[in-house]
């Protein structure tokens, strides 16, 4: 750490290509669920005494995320909406303050900075936003938009800025004559290019791209992606590229990180991740994408249910509630087939998507009439009896406590590294299946 601190002031030249440029260590970001003067108060009719409770609910949007971005590379960050990828991006940029953790940029911990010092570091880190409509001020001309960051950091005089803005517009593939136009005169793809020009204006080292092409038509996406790549080569840029579209990630990234419910589940070299996906979530994600090839045999829809709430995320592995490969609890002696049936039964009881209550019919339907023997079987039978007594909640809870909560997936947070099949980069997987 001391070494890092000493090199903090050396500037861009201190980091060579391939060396870590950004190091994110154990970053967490929690939001209060409600904001406002009295949001720490809530009403609870069932409480003893005063029907008022204190304390806030916290949305655990990002939890304990660590990774490194090397100079000159593109790190793809992929995940579904609500997984915390945009929050993470904004935390890295210090648009949000991390609840915990450190963000080292060229050795300086951004989490420690504030005020003018933080503002000065923004020169080296820029961002490109998702929505080409709203990321440009509709009342500002394009030229001024591109010049604004330069002006904020006192770069050049006003003529110099204007010249540079026009040069940059040309660089990103726009007509410099458009300098005096308003953003609404441009199409979505062109606006995204203006965004690029603005980000490049202060000569940054690192650009965070938050879904830069997801709002664009496919044919325009390709144009913008190609431009981004060319610019990266020309200016030696480092990208953190966030997207929900794995096809885009596959095209642009060097390494890929997959996020689920605020945590990283897998991080590996691009080829390794796509050819040898190890985490069940990554596999599900890859299987879900519609492939533009009618002869491809799709799996599709392998995941059930919805992402749980980040207010009260599942213990252990956060993906376990939807995971098709939940590990058998160690204390039960169940075969794979039996475990499969128990889990299917548990899922159906929880979703309550059948109306049958007769014990025999249930055991026939979900266990082929063969309820497993031993401890596990007793618990299943007890749950079936609960259903017969029409107490579905008790049955669901009993099964959850007896099985799902006993799995190692619920008890320990996974964090493993596997040997890569492709390339030499580290391949980290947060799944207990890798525990050997």
């Amino acid at each position, binding site marked *: 750490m001391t070494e890092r601190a000493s090199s903090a002031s050396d500037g861009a030249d201190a980091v060579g290509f391939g060396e870590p440029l950004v190091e994110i260590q154990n970053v967490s970001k929690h939001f209060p669920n409600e904001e406002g003067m009295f949001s720490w108060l809530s009403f609870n009719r069932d409480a003893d005494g005063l029907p008022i409770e204190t304390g806030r609910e916290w949305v655990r949007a990002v939890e304990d995320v660590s990774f490194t971005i090397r100079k000159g590379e593109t790190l793809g960050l992929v995940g579904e909406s609500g997984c915390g990828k945009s929050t993470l991006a904004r935390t890295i940029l210090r648009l949000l303050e991390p609840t915990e953790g450190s963000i080292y940029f060229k050795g300086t911990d951004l989490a420690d900075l504030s005020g003018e010092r933080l503002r000065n570091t923004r020169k080296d880190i820029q961002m490109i936003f998702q929505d080409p409509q709203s990321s440009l001020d509709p009342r500002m001309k394009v030229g001024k938009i591109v010049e604004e960051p330069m002006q904020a950091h006192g770069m050049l005089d006003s003529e110099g800025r204007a010249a540079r803005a026009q040069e940059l517009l040309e660089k990103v593939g726009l007509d410099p004559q*458009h300098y005096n136009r308003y953003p609404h005169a441009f199409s979505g793809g062109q606006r995204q*290019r203006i965004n690029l020009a603005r980000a490049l204006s202060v000569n940054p080292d690192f650009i965070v791209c938050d879904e830069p092409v997801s709002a664009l038509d496919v044919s325009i996406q390709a144009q913008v992606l*190609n431009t981004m790549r060319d610019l990266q080569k020309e200016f030696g840029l480092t990208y953190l590229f966030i997207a929900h*579209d794995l*096809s885009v990630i596959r095209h642009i990234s060097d390494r890929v990180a997959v996020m689920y419910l605020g945590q990283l589940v897998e991080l590996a070299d691009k080829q390794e991740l796509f050819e040898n996906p190890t985490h069940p979530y990554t596999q599900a994600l890859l299987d879900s*994408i519609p492939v533009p090839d009618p002869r491809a045999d799709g799996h*599709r829809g392998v995941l059930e249910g919805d992402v749980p709430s980040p207010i009260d995320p599942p213990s252990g592995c956060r993906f376990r509630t939807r995971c098709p490969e939940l590990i058998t609890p160690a204390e039960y002696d169940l075969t794979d087939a039996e475990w499969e049936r128990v889990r299917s039964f548990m899922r159906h009881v929880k979703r309550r998507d059948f109306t049958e209550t007769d014990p025999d019919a249930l055991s026939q339907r979900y266990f082929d009439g063969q309820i497993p023997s031993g401890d596990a079987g007793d618990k299943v039978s007890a749950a079936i009896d609960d259903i017969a007594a029409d107490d579905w909640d008790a049955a669901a809870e009993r099964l959850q406590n007896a099985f799902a909560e006993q799995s190692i997936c619920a008890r320990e947070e996974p964090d493993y590294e596997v040997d890569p099949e492709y390339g030499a980069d580290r391949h980290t997987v947060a799944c207990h299946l890798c525990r050997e």
Partner: protein
Amino acid sequence: MSAPLLRVDDLQVQFFTEDGVVRAVDGISFDVREGELVGLVGESGAGKSVAVSAIMRLVESPGRIVGGHIEFKGETLIEVERGDDGESYRTDATIPDGELRERIRGREIAIIFQDPMESLNPVFTVGGQLREFIELNRDLSEEDAREEAVRMLREVGIPEAAARYDDYPHQFSGGMRQRVLIAMALACEPALIIADEPTTALDVTVEAQILDLVDELQERYDTSFVWVTHDMGVVAEICDRVNVMYLGEIVEQAPVDDLFYDTQHPYTEALLDSVPRPDETVEELNPIKGVMPEAINPPAGCRFHTRCPDAREACKTTNPDCRDVTDGVTEHRAACIKHDAFETTYEGSPPLETGSGGGFDVSLSGGETDD
């Protein structure tokens, strides 16, 4: 083969705006057979949403259906002809508004929109809305309708359907809301469902769930679908036949396998080349040059010629119709004069300078705002 369930013939929809007439849909024809899932694919601005809203006569002002004939189960949903004075008017064969609303909308043809939040009223419970819809359209008692509503919710995979019946739309996730809309669309067991980008707003894993659900339900109810999308992946996954639209026109019409493996129109080909693939690493993408011109002032001749890699002089003058271009074993139509089916001067015509295929440098300065 039996007569098609839905036949759209030479449909034209125009928007009369301050800046001029926008020919959003300019003479498209396609049909949907029973039990078939027909795709309508194209980029934004191609006119695909307008085209499907015209089927149900839901085009909103300043838009107007100015020509064409839409027939559903032998009934004329709309027939517009141009009179001697140049004004277009509906013919007598068109079924009246009231009858369309009572008998066709919801009962025979249902629509699923992209944003489920806009289709559900936020101040009523999900179950209540579904129940009311069933009660109105299927003449059931309130009791029975409620039971049917819960059954439908369970059918489309809403967990704890009975308990969630009383929830409000905002308490559902995006995917769940889309399931509710599918339940609503299926409630009257319509013959045709029009799905306007129903999965675009959803995450991939949820999209996959919905696509699975549609597959499953289609098998069970034998419903026909018109599926509007911009995603070639979705097309490949679920469609039986596909219509590719560009700037208000259908440029290619083919069974899904032929569309991907025996592509006949340069636009379709370019579109397929420009998408990054999830299943393989593509080093260099090959984007379509430029942007789609505005429908208010479309290019003369073939509308794609300004961006087409195969464009020749002849393309500037001839606007080809969509005709059968292959051997006739399968029905495969394309609107490109490079095919022999068009007896034109394409062969001898000199190629147009549309720049190199490299893409981005050309595309920008020639953007649509310039001209």
